[in-house]
C-alpha cells in the first residue's frame, strides 16, 4: 500500500539524507519525493510517497519522528492510529 508522509524539518546538514536513508533502510521504497525550502520561514518541507509490502507505516512514522531535525510527521492517507489497542494477530 502506498502512503504519503508530510514532514516539517529543521534545515540542517544531512537532514534530507538522514530522512531518505532511514526510509529505505527500514524497508520502504520511495516512489516520490518533494522537498521545498523556498518559503519565508526557511523551514524544509518534504512529502514522501512510500510503499512497503509488509512493514508498518506507523512504525516508520515514529522512527522518522525520532530524528532530531524532524519537527513533525503527518501521515496523510491512512486511518490508522498507532497507539490504539489492537488485538494481537497471534491470539
Amino acid at each position, binding site marked *: 500500500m502506498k502512503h504519503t508522509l508530510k514532514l516539517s524539518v529543521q534545515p540542517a546538514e544531512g537532514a534530507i539524507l538522514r530522512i531518505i536513508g532511514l526510509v529505505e533502510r527500514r524497508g520502504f521504497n520511495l516512489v516520490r519525493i518533494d522537498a521545498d525550502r523556498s518559503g519565508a520561514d526557511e523551514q524544509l518541507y518534504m512529502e514522501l510517497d512510500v510503499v512497503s509490502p509488509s512493514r508498518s507505516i506507523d512504525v516508520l512514522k515514529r522512527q522518522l519522528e525520532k530524528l532530531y531535525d524532524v519537527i513533525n510527521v503527518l501521515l496523510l492517507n491512512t486511518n490508522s492510529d498507532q*497507539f490504539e489497542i489492537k488485538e494481537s494477530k497471534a491470539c
Partner: protein
Amino acid sequence: MNGAQLIVAALEEEGVEVVFGYPGGAIMPVYDALHDSGLRHILSRHEQGSALAADGYARATGRTGVCMATSGPGGTNLVTGIANAYADSVPMVAITGQVATPLMGTDSFQEVDIFGITMPVVKHSFLLRDVADIPRVIREAFRIASEGRPGPVLIDLPKDVAVAETDAHPLLAGPQPAPKLPDAAAISRAAELLRNAERPVLYAGGGIAIAGAVDAFRRYAETSGIPVVATLKALGALPTRHEQFIGMLGMHGTRAANNAVQNADLLVCVGARFDDRATGRLDGFAPLAKVIHMDADPAEVSKLRVADVALLGDLSGTLERLPAAEIDVDPWMAQCEREREECRPRYDAPGEGVYAPAMLRELTEAAGDDLVLACDVGQHQMWVAQHCHIDRPDRHLTSGGLGTMGFGMPAAIGAQLGNPDKQVVCITGDGSIMMNVQELATINRYRLPIKILLLDNSCLGMVRQWQDLFFDGRRSEVELDDNPDFVRVAESFGIPAFCVERRDEVPAAIDRLLNTEGPVLAHVRIDPQANVWPLVPPGKSNSTMMEEA
C-alpha cells in the same frame, strides 16, 4: 582560545574524565589542547579499540563514553565501535578530526565523509563548520547521547575550525528534563490485562539497565511474584540465582524460559525489543500471549510484535505505577520452577579436558561480588550467559545487538578505567582475541589489572557448530590450528600468562587468575568439538529446541 581548546573545555564542563582515542593529522589541535586539560586520555592501539573501550566504560559506569580519532582511516576505524554502541543503545560521543573545510569534497589526504558513513549507526551527528557552534553542539551531543533511549553521537571537526580563535565559552549543563511517563489510561489497561492473566511472564530486556531501573524492576518482580525471563543483555536484572528467575530466553536460552514464554497468556515486556535471537520465528513466539510493552522508545512498540498495551516512558516510573497482578501466580510459578529444575545443566562431562561451562561457573563462584565480566563474541559468550552467576546487568558487558568479535578486551579496558576498584575479567576466545589483540599493549601501558580468560578451541567454534548442524558438516575456513602461542603473545606485551590444559588444573588456574596482582592471561585449551546447547535452529520457533544428542 581556539576551537580545539574550547572542545576540551566543553568536555570538562560535561564532567568527562576519561577520553579514549588515537591521534593523527586532522585532530592534532585537540591533542595539543589535551596538554592543558584535566582529561585523562587513554591511548588505544587501534581506533576500534578506542570506540569499544568508550562503550565498555559507558556500560559499566552509566556515564557517556567519549572517543576520538583523526580523519579518514581514524574515523572509519571507529565505525564498528559506534555501530556497536548504536545496536546496544549505549551513550557515546565520538569526535573525529576532519580535513579543513576548503579541502572537504576535494578528495584530499585522509578525507572521508565520516558524517555520511556513520549516518545509519548514530543517534545524531554534527559537522562543525563554525567555531561559534562548539558550545551548543557539545551540549546537544551529550544531551542526545544520554536522554531517552541512549546512543552514539558523532561530531566531525574540520581542522580549520579547530584552530580558529573564538571568544565563546562552554555552555553549562541545564537541568535534566523530567522523565516521561505513560498516561493513566494506559496504566489502567495494563492493570486490567494483569488482573485477567493466569500465566504472566516478565520479559526483561537491556533497557532495564540502560534506564537505571534495576531496583524498580526487582521490586515489581518480587511484589508481583511473576516469573522472569531475560534477554542476553538483561541477565542480572534479577540475579540469575533468584528463585523467580527462569532463565535466558531465545536461541541459546533455557528450555524452561522458552516454554514459559510459549505457554504464557500475558507477556510483560520491560525494555526489550523482540530481537530475532530472543524470539526465534516471530509468528511462533508467545502464541497465546497478550503483550504489555514498556519502553522509552516509541518506535519499538509494535515494530515486530503488536502490543496490546504500550507503556511509553521512563521504566522506573512506569514500574512504580503499575499495580502488581492481583492474581494467584503461585501454581504457574511452581510449574516454571519445576521446568527450570528439570533442565538444569550438568557439569559432569566425561573426559579429563577442561569443560568450559564448568570452568566459567566455578570462576563466578570463586570471584567476589565486585566482578565485572566483559565478554567477546562466540560460543564462550553464550556459555557465560548460560553458566555464570550474574548479579547485575552492568556487571555483564556483552555485545548483544551487533555481536562484535573483538569487543571483550577493549570493553574490559573501559570498564576497569571506570571502576578501578572492581575485578574485571575478560572472557574471550581464540578467534575474538585476535580481532583486537593489539589492546594488550593498552592494558600493559596503563598496567590495568584485567584478568583475561582465553578459551581456545583452535577454531571459530560457533561458525563450526553451525556448519556441522546446518551445512552438512562442510567446514569452511573455521580451523585456527595455526594460532600463535598465546602465552608468548601475552608475555611479549608485558603481560604474564599461563596455560591450562587439564580439568584438574582448573581450581588452581582460577585462583591464580583472580589473585595475580596486575594483568594476567590464562590460556585454556578446550574441546574443539564442544557445542553450545540448547539451540533453536535459525528461522524456527523457540518451541523447537535442539539438545545435546
